[in-house]
């Protein structure tokens, strides 16, 4: 074997520029974000799924009823992102967290702007920070923030 030499390197970008159609359930969910509301799907068994599923996971029947849930909730689990990537929702260290909103039975994945990992705990209360101008996309929720911050 020859002595270690640096090999060739090259940038490589793999990108899928998807646009997706939303359908009646997610279409209403994203419209709700524009209006500052978060909608969940109520299933036949009475569970509320957020984000809404298009079909009831218990019965496989189409979801018809969407209900408002709270814009604050509790962190179910989280992980700390010490070095955010360029396209992450926040330009500073943050947490990815599953947040169970008040009135919901499932959790939604989003960023929590907690500044330092020591401020993150499982079960902590967080609230939505809305984007000023909303267009019906997940980024209409800038992130969640500790409830005490307001």
């Amino acid at each position: 074997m020859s002595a270690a030499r640096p090999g060739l390197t090259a940038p490589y970008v793999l990108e899928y520029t998807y646009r997706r159609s939303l359908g009646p359930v997610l279409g209403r969910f994203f419209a709700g974000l524009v209006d500052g509301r978060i909608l969940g799907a109520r299933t036949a068994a009475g569970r509320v799924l957020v984000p809404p599923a298009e079909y009831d996971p218990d019965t496989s029947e189409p979801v018809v009823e969407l209900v408002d849930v709270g814009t604050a909730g509790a962190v179910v689990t989280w992980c700390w992102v010490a070095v955010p990537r360029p396209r992450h929702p926040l330009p500073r260290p943050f947490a990815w967290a599953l947040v169970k909103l008040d009135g919901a039975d499932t959790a939604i994945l989003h960023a929590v702007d907690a500044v330092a990992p020591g401020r993150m705990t499982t079960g902590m209360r967080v609230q939505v920070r809305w984007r000023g101008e909303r267009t019906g996309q997940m980024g209409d929720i800038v992130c969640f923030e500790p409830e005490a911050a307001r």
Partner: protein
Amino acid sequence: MTDPIKRIKAPVRFEFTIGAGQTLSRFLAGLVEGRILGRRCPGCAKVYVPPRGACPTCALPAGDEVAVSDAGTVTTFCIVNVPFEGQTMKLPYVYASVLLDGADIPLLHLVNAPAEEARMGMRVRAEWAPPAERRPTLESIRWFSPTGEPDAPFDAFKEHL
């Protein structure tokens, strides 16, 4: 109340830095010089082009470097009929596995022949970019073009498909 949203953008993007590794780096450097370099497995004696750092069959580190011919035989091929972003060839075009003379593993590259003439066994030779335009990439070979030699018999490449 806002009307239901019909569509959203949902892009997926991965930004990598690919490290070619030392074995492949030598192969790529060879292309700049107009040479095609493989490596021979010390176990099964197969010549891999492009070379691997180790033989996937014998699990042995790659052995001697071997210069192979820039002429070879089309083993299998496909005819591309579907346009996609970044495409440089006019449809339909031929993309083939080319078994270079002296190699045991075919190399994937373009074949500059009318699609209806593509066939297994067709003899082809590399058309190199001019030396000043060669870079450490397989694009230093523009494509392979038919040599006009008689087709190689199936038995000549059946072990290398």
